[in-house]
């Protein structure tokens, strides 16, 4: 019968100080390949729609006429399929996640290519 087996561990915890990452105060560093959110370099995009077709969660809508690429962040499961399938490699996975939102619509990230400058509607930026 052994008691206080845990004592060593908890005392060490007490004296070593907390292991907490103190997240909001201190930013978390992510690895390069962390799947955070999908980004599109809209200048390169050819609006082929392959990504939208492949998306398992129907998060992407691409409109060739309006030259518009929209991702619904609340639908995207960051599976990377679109990135893999993109013929011009304009899609990439950013390593920071998309922050929580209170309204559904604010999670819609629209990117439209209008010559000469790209209009970016992204609440995160």
């Amino acid at each position, binding site marked *: 019968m052994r008691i206080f087996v845990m004592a060593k561990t908890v005392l060490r915890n007490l004296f070593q100080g907390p292991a*907490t*990452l103190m997240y909001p105060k201190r930013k978390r560093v992510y690895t390069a390949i962390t799947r955070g959110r999908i980004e599109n370099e809209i200048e390169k995009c050819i609006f082929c729609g392959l990504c939208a077709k492949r998306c398992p*969660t129907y998060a992407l809508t691409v409109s060739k006429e309006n030259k518009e690429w929209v991702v619904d962040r609340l*639908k*995207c499961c960051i599976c990377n399929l679109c990135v893999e399938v993109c013929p011009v490699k304009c899609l990439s996975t950013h390593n920071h996640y998309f922050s*929580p*939102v*209170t309204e559904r619509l604010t999670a819609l990230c629209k990117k439209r290519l209008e010559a000469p400058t790209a209009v970016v509607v992204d609440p995160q930026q």
Partner: protein
Amino acid sequence: MGWFKRSPWVLHYNATSCNGCDIEVIVSLTPLYDLERFGIINTGNPKHADILAVTGSVNEKSRQVLLNLYEQMPNPKVVVAVGLCATSGCVFQDCYNVLGGVDKVLPVDVYVPGCAARPESIIDGILKACEILEEKYSQRKKTGYPAAKE
């Protein structure tokens, strides 16, 4: 004085989730993320809770459970949909038994995306929920408490 902001208690319910987000909700209470820094406790009892954190895409059976739990929470209360399944149904939105998203059942206040939602994201989401909780409380105070209903 903003007491809600300082002490939001969370009830977590897994409504048809794949476990991934549930683990992350639990993990966000543990040493590395430690939600208790913000006074957040995982209560496990709707009657003590201020925030209902729902993971999963809700099916017919868990729908009723969610409604029951929500009904038993005292006002002001906030619903946080954690993870992609809870916000939209993720890859399961085509499944026959999935309603797809908590907002089909309950009024959702905060959507936390991610598959699975990262602990940081969950912390952000719950802190955001605290603000809404505070707002809801001041609104209630203005409109006054409704009288007893049997």
